């Protein structure tokens, strides 16, 4: 154990960057277990009596490395060799921490960042029944790891599924260079703005839906995930170019918006089911979608683009081309949507429905049609933001959107629930605060600061920046 820890300390930068624990929901049963030693198995599935440590050994180009000896030590120990597709697995019986090691020369000759990782297994726990070790996973974030390394210990290496996305959003931060405060300040401000723009893209749609139907959609995060995962399907499974895949993802997103409205929300509105009941339905829907994603795509983060772009320097900021293009797309789309809302006939109809649906209907606006378009638009925007987010974060996981959902809520509440420009301003503030706060508080707490804003806003100005006071309550 101490041995494992000291090894871990030596490699803490690398370890921090590459660990992922998969959320595997638990079978809540427990049986009187008979002790067994760890076993190497071809595949491993966690049950009430055993946990799993497994992974795929791949080189930096995603090619499997076969026939490498993998050693498990810690509570129990065993060795195995990777199969033809690079897979290896251990079935373990004792809870506790385990260290997985491959030969150092193998790691260095295949360009892997590390050759050892420590994970913990807890059979009775939701997320700790299975630990996946990927020696090639480097896309977490150099910045986050260098920041956290001050307090490195074996436990922070097991970054859970939610923080893996959290960490990597500051991926382009200054890593190798000196981490003086001024430079970090500008870097965080920049990444906060980028993050805020993407958040704005997803929040605008959510806000439009709230404005026209009074529904706070908890399943909006899954629409974002859907966009990212569909791009993954396009680029990695169908081998389409990125732009085609992105358009494909947006089209699928828009389609789900249409289907959702026709199959679920329109009938519910016709039945006069209240917005609160509908809100709980969105919670159910979000659970269904989230676990369907997990069912089809598994628990790991899916990389959308495999090539790593070279970053470059603009003043004090390090960035890359993909990030800048993403930001540009986000700005253009937000401007277009705003123009659409304020300067077209249909946009005016949308705002009329937001103000007073009954009055709008009485004055000849087809409210159902407006709501249908709003749903399509909202889900398409969410899908687009999922695409951009996936490129920006270098990958998308089944729960990425769910992690972002609360930040969207904070953004729209801050801007003013149901107001059009509110989402943009709110999202930018939330994005900047979330990323800037990591200058002061630990990096993995930075989303908490954004959520704290939500509560503070409600305390002092519950209608938000742009909201009208009578909306509240």
């Amino acid at each position: 154990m101490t041995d494992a820890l000291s090894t871990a300390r030596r490699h803490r930068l690398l370890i921090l960057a590459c660990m992922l624990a998969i959320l595997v929901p638990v079978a809540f049963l427990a049986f009187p277990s008979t002790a067994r030693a760890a076993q190497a198995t071809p595949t491993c599935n966690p049950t009430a009596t055993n946990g799993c440590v497994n992974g795929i050994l791949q080189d930096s180009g995603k090619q499997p490395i076969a026939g490498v000896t993998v050693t498990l030590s810690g509570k129990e120990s065993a060795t195995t060799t990777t199969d033809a597709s690079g897979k290896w697995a251990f079935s373990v019986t004792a809870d506790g921490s385990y260290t997985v090691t491959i030969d150092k020369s193998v790691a260095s000759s295949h360009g892997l960042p590390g050759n050892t990782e420590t994970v913990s297994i807890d059979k009775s726990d939701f997320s700790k029944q299975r630990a996946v070790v990927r020696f090639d996973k480097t896309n977490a974030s150099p910045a986050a790891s260098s920041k956290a390394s001050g307090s490195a210990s074996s436990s922070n290496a097991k970054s859970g599924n939610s923080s893996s996305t959290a960490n990597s959003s500051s991926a382009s931060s200054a890593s190798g260079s000196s981490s003086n405060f001024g430079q970090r300040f500008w870097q965080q401000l920049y990444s906060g703005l980028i993050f805020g723009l993407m958040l704005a893209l997803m929040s605008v749609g959510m806000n439009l839906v709230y404005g026209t139907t009074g529904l706070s959609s908890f399943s909006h995060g899954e629409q974002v995930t859907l966009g990212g995962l569909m791009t993954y399907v396009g680029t990695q499974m169908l081998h389409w170019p990125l732009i085609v895949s992105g358009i494909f993802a947006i089209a699928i997103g828009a389609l789900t918006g249409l289907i959702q409205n026709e199959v679920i929300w329109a009938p519910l509105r016709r039945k006069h089911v209240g917005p609160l009941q509908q809100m709980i339905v969105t919670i159910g829907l979000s659970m269904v979608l989230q676990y369907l994603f997990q069912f089809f795509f598994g628990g790991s983060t899916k990389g959308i683009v495999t090539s790593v772009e070279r970053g470059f320097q603009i003043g004090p900021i390090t960035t890359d081309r993909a990030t800048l293009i993403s930001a540009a797309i986000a700005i253009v789309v937000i401007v277009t949507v705003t123009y659409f809302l304020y300067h077209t006939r249909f946009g005016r109809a949308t705002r009329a429905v937001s103000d007073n649906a009954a009055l709008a209907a009485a004055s000849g606006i087809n409210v159902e049609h407006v709501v249908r378009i709003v749903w399509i638009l909202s889900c398409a925007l969410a899908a687009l933001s999922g695409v951009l987010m996936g490129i920006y974060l270098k990958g998308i996981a089944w729960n990425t959107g769910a992690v972002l959902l609360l930040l969207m809520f904070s953004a729209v509440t801050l801007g003013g629930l149901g107001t059009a420009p509110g989402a943009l301003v709110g999202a930018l503030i939330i994005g900047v605060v979330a990323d800037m706060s990591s200058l002061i508080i630990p990096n993995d707490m930075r989303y908490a600061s954004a959520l704290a804003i939500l509560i503070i806003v409600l305390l002092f100005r519950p209608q938000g920046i742009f909201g009208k006071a009578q909306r509240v309550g």
Partner: protein
Amino acid sequence: MDFLTIITNSLGELIAPTTAAYALAAIGLNIHFGMTGLFNMGQAGFMLLGAYGFAITQSMGWSILGSLCMALFLSFLFALLLGIPTLKLGPDYLSMVTLAAAEIVRIIGRSTAMTKLTGGSGGISPQDFTEKFEALSPLPDGQSTFLLWTYSNNTANSWWIRIVAWVLVGIALFLTWRWFNSPWGRVLKGIREDENAVRSLGKSVTRFKIQSLFLGGAFGALAGIIFVLPRSVQPDSLGRQVTFYTWTILLMGGAATVFGPLIGSCVLWVALTLIKEFMRGTIPTTVISSDQVEALGWVIMGIALMCIVIFRPQGILGDRKELAFNA
């Protein structure tokens, strides 16, 4: 896979501590939502605070009673913190704030900066906080078999936890039954139906809401303790999903009924285990892996939640006339 094992395992869920913990959490939520109409989406936050309060003070060597008080005190603080800014707001705002607050608790708890206190994302392992609880057990050491099930008497996922958990559920059910039929409970129901009417009678609506938030949260904290006793304190295992499951349980059993949370919890966990075990037993792992079966289980849960809210919002036991969705 033989069917007797599947059925034994599924029925085992009837008495499992997790089922009891969810029943307790749902009873708390019932006080919030069923009685008072508060849209608390942060029940997992109460549970996590309760679990932390108990486990941390236990590992510091406090007595069981002291730790319990600490857990309840934390949930009281949380209720106060949530209640004061938000109880004047509409239900969708309250749901967002409670959800955000619970997430804040979880994010701070799992942060590396808190590793010394909360163990970070690794959490607190059972040997640090279950010792005194197990020592309290009057049962002899060893294993016992009762009807179909065999568990150890005192250690880990034991009969002792089951006894304590279900006694707590019984007490909670008795108390909610008393409260539902007390003048205090009638004021809460009045608040649920029409806040302004209650205000016009000279009652302080905010005070009643905070009382309700605290009492429901206290049950949440106890549920959190029961939830972590057979496993370990894990911030990520008490995330917002737990809140959503609790809502499913409450709405399935029937909000604003005394036995709704109990029935909901038992039906949900037994049915879910039955379905999952059945899928594991019949579908070869080459078609659907064990992880995927788990995911499918939650998909079914989500669909159940949607269907209940749409088709039978009063749940199994509820009365359609007495619905808490009246915004």
